[in-house]
């Protein structure tokens, strides 16, 4: 149970956040209407009007489903590989330094350079998910590795004195102790997966928000472009928020 004082503090903070957000939107509106930002910065109301047009709404929805699917698949793939690699490094400590280096190298590969290679080897359809998976893999590997060695020292001693096998210790102690760090990593991974998917689409995916952004930029459909960007940000933030809630629930359960 939190105290009344801190709950009030939380409310106050939320209020500040809402005020800041509203202020930002107001500034955008003013800048757009006055034309300070040039023709490429439309007013907020012009962007919102895009969502009112039914064929554009349908276009954005289709694109959003495609991009979210790619990002989701990338998230799943990257997280699975990241977890497996982190568990391997934990199980066979001799491999850990090598796997660390491998993860760093994989993460250092620039998506822009890797995109064309993936288009040729894996195809246009799979590239967005794969480009999303790479940064997710790195994040989850790092989060998972630190999570897997975060178990309480006394509990480790208890498990050892109880003659627990590696596997039993992993199932009953290490894997569960790793959850908070892992969820924290997942929270960050959601946003990087979205970025990876959008960038991946730029290399010529059949559909997706990245394609919408690219086409509208080239055809100078500025409000539609901004509308697509807002959808990307909205999906990222929603994922971030949902995982934040899950993370907090887990932390409360583990306290």
């Amino acid at each position, binding site marked *: 149970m939190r105290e009344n004082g801190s709950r009030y503090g939380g409310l106050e903070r939320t209020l500040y956040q809402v005020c800041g957000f509203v202020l930002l939107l107001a500034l955008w509106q003013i800048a757009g209407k006055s034309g300070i930002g040039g023709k490429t910065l439309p007013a907020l109301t012009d962007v919102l009007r895009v969502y009112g047009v039914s064929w554009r709404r349908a276009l954005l929805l289709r694109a959003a489903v495609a991009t979210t699917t790619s990002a989701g698949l990338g998230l799943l793939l990257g997280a699975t590989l990241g977890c497996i690699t982190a568990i391997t490094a934990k199980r066979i400590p001799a491999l850990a330094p090598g796997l660390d280096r491998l993860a760093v190298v994989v993460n250092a590969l620039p998506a822009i350079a890797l995109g064309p290679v993936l288009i040729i080897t894996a195809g246009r359809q799979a590239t967005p998910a794969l480009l999303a998976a790479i940064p997710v893999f790195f994040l989850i590997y790092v989060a998972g590795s630190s999570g897997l060695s975060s178990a309480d020292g006394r509990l480790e001693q208890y498990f050892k*004195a*109880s003659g627990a096998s590696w596997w039993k210790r992993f199932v*009953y102690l290490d894997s569960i102790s790793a959850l908070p760090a892992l969820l924290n990593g997942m929270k960050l991974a959601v946003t990087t997966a979205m970025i990876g998917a959008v960038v991946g689409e730029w290399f010529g995916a059949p559909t997706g928000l990245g394609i919408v952004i690219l086409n509208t930029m080239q055809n100078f459909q500025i409000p539609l472009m901004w509308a697509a960007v807002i959808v990307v940000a909205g999906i990222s933030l929603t994922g971030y928020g949902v995982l934040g809630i899950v993370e907090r629930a887990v932390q409360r359960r*583990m306290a």
Partner: protein
Amino acid sequence: MSTIELKGVSKEFRISRDKRVMALSAMDLSIREGEFVALLGPSGCGKSTILHLVAGLDEPSTGAVFVDGLPPAQLQAKQQLGIAFQEHALLPWRTVEGNLELPFQIAGREPDRKQIADLIELVGLKGFETARPSQLSGGMRQRVSIARALCLSPKLLLLDEPFGALDAVTRRFMNLELQRIWQEKQITTILVTHTVEEAIFLADRVIRELRVPFARPRSVETMRREEFHHLVDDLTLCLEP
């Protein structure tokens, strides 16, 4: 039940490249079956080291430890070791019941519901089966910890300052409780403590570990130090009839 033998055991810890600390030197100790032995001494004198060696959590630098004539690792592997620490070391995400299921799960056995219920009753936590450690008081957590140590009917019970973190009143109460529990089971027990009362109240035999912490050569200055007087007081108390 089991007998414990320490033969010429010493344990050195390296704290930096060229600095070593001797926690135990040439220690001989023999504990009979069913005996309750208390290891008494100020903190940092190697009491817990003895416990860790017997539990197989550490290897001696020289000498050997035997439990029933076997190295401790074998007792460990057979899950015949009950251990409770100063910090309760319970799984925070499990209930009292769930924590008592853990030893069974580690041993790969089906949790014995009846035994778990009996143990919860034995340590006086009936009604708290579904509470999680964060919802319990410090004394209650230590009860769970002791109940967990008793789960697989161990041959040897190791208690590492189990009540060290409790206040004096709770500690006295827990001492009475531990005596009641021990009388029902009479398992060979080693208790590490820095409380004289606790040691004398619970044990059949109290072993006093005292390492003199002053470097040589010692001078008159040494005799004026506060630490010196504390040690003198400590030992004098032991000699009083």
